[in-house]
């Protein structure tokens, strides 16, 4: 059971990291336009 003393803080750190990525993703507009991105692959002028 002693491993939990390491694993619980580790999991909290991991969640905080995930939360940080979520903050970045939302604020940089990754969730803004979910439908148009699928169609973009059809646009040949873009790389």
């Amino acid at each position, binding site marked *: *059971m002693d491993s939990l003393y390491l694993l*619980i*803080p580790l*999991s909290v750190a991991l969640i905080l990291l995930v*939360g940080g990525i*979520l*903050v970045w993703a*939302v*604020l940089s507009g990754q*969730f803004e336009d979910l439908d148009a991105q699928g169609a973009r692959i059809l646009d040949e002028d873009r790389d």
Partner: protein
Amino acid sequence: MAAPTSNRLEPADARRGAATDGRCDFCAEPLAGRPAVQRPVRGVARNYCCLGCAFIAEQLAALALAPDGPGAAGAPAPAAGGGRSAASARIAIGGMVCSACAVLLEHRLRSTAGVRSAHVDFVAQRAQVVYDPGRTDRATLERTVLRSGYRVPAGDDPRAAKRASRIELLRVLLAWLAMMQVMMLAAPGYLAAPGQIAPGIEQMLRIAECVLSAPVVLFCAAPFWRAAFSQLRVHRIGMDVPVAVGLAAAAAASAWSTATQRGAVYFDSLTMFVALLLAVRWWQLRAMAHATAQVDAAARQTRMTANRLRAHSSGAAYDTIPAEQLRAGDRIAIPAGEAVPADARIVAGSTNVSQAWLTGESAALPKVEGDMLLAGSLNVGQPVVATVVRAGDASSLAVLQQLIVEAAGRRPPAAPFAGRVAAGFALGVLALAGSTLAAWLLIDPARAAGAAIAVLVVTCPCALSLAAPLAAAIAQARLARNGVLLLRTAALESLAGVDIVAFDKTGTLTEHCPQLVRLEVLGGMGADDCLAIAAAVEAHSQHPFALALAAQARARDVPRPPAICIAENAGVGIEGIVAGQRFRLGRAGYALALARDPLAGAAALAALRARPHAVDGSQVVLAGADGALALLVFGETPRADAPGLLQSLARAGKRVLVVSGDQAPAVARLARRLEQSSGAALECLADQSPEGKRAVLEALQRQGHRVAMIGDGMNDAPVLAQADASIALASGSRLAQVRADVVIPGSELAQVQRVFDLARRTRAIIRENLLWALAYNLVMVPLAALGLLAPWIAAAGMAASAALVLANSLRLRGVAAGA
């Protein structure tokens, strides 16, 4: 039974007076024997040609901008800033989280020196303020907004708005992420037998939950803190106060338990509560933003522009500028089919205009050189050149908009059922927690704090605060699927509670444009041929009659031969050559002047004049070289779906009222027709100006009635704003000017019935939800007060009751799917 004019509802307006021979005191239109509208303006009795002119003159007089006499109407308006004139400002507001914020801000703005009236629109996130430019200015008003704790976004900054909506989304997502993690950390404690988990691990789990809950309480729940705070500041306890109390109690108690390592922690309930509330709130905000965006987009597309003629150019060179930039004295070109951008006087040309936005009368009025055109009127005749008399805030269109803002401020406040429950609930919970604390202090002081906290946490009104918004959001989505825009959620509940439904006549109960109701053949030509010629001559005109002819010709599948050499004479008629022959369509005298044989023409004219005048509309004569061919009668026709709607409203026990700007005989005639076809009793009020209609509604509301108004959103806009709930039928360019709670694009009157049905169902569902939430609390509170409630029961109960409320609300999705 018909009651053409009800005694209780005597119109406040002056009646149409005797015939006079002068000119209208506002637009200088010759009265030419027509009955005038007599009104005293600033102590002097005046005659106006129509209710529209009378109304605008009164409103301008109130703003001290009215022309003093017929001649002075041409003079430019006094410069802004002059003593008694008022200015208005529209300020975008950021940071409002609930309608209590709007009330608070409104109160602050009104108590600012120099402010005459203020209305804060929570949905549009805007404030409309009328103030004395001499005593205060826009910058002062903006400072007031900032001091009250709200933001003033620079312009309508799209980047700031985008950032704000991203932050809202972030709150939801972070709360859900934290909720899932906290739930996982809490689960071992619920599943393990007592003592199975080492105390050290237990404490570590608590600390982890605490760390993950902190951003939820401090960041995600911020809108609830703010809303509760502003509700407390205006002494209007809404649902956010008990939410904030429950949250604060749970957070503080759990943090204390973590720090002291004893007592229960409620981090799982807490985060779940915030996550559920935020999700529903976000859903509702998005639906609302979607609905307002559609109206705003229409407004942007139809932003009024003006064609200002260049001062030193001899030709017709003009610049297209926004209408707000016009100044008195500018010369503008007004093309056919476009709206008049400012109050202006014709200097060249003649045309017909429709002032339906103001008077509700769809008939086109002839205007010649020297006549006034009111801003917002539609030029349905030919291009003209005009000189601007009043522009911007002084124009008649702006005056009407001002009236809307004031009416919205006078609307009786909506008291949503859930809001009323919330106030009692908040007090009840505090009292319960207090008595629990007191009782346990007497019995076992060690358990007192724990039990009191448990009461506060378990009553945390999750289901209660989800009850109304969830049902409203689903109803809104349901309406949106039918293309109906719900712009004020509270209106849905008001709509279910109204006992009087008031209708505007023109464009609401009747088709928007006059229709060809009768075609009498007078000469040797068949009815279809007459229709073909009339439609051909009018093919390129924007006149309402021309549109009616085109519609009729299409409906009867009549071919339209090409017409050449078309000449339109404002106010009398139109002529053109079809298949080599000249025809005229218009007033009898004008049309018959074309007759090859003057004696026969005169005889036909005398015969026409001897006939009784058409009672059901205005008549027009089609004539050629051989004399009169046909008599065409244009009039209003009731919408096909009007009787069905009236019938079901009457069956639901609602009083139906028709308020119209039109003259009494026309209104009574339509009412009788509708009564016959629907069997519902209609009460009629004719000859009403927009202000008169509004006053009627206000009087009814003072008698304790709750009134819904259904109109086309143009000339009746102030009335729509005064009503407890309003529905506007509007489409295309008119969508832009509409300010109503519910907007039905397209003009299907049958949709109104669906809105009423859905409103009734929504109210029923909201009440069921509230009932369930209260029943849940009745069971849980005694358990908590007795100290029998484990934290996991609180969490499970909250999840279960929220799920039940969601399931119940989802039943709204299937309402009236096709009917």
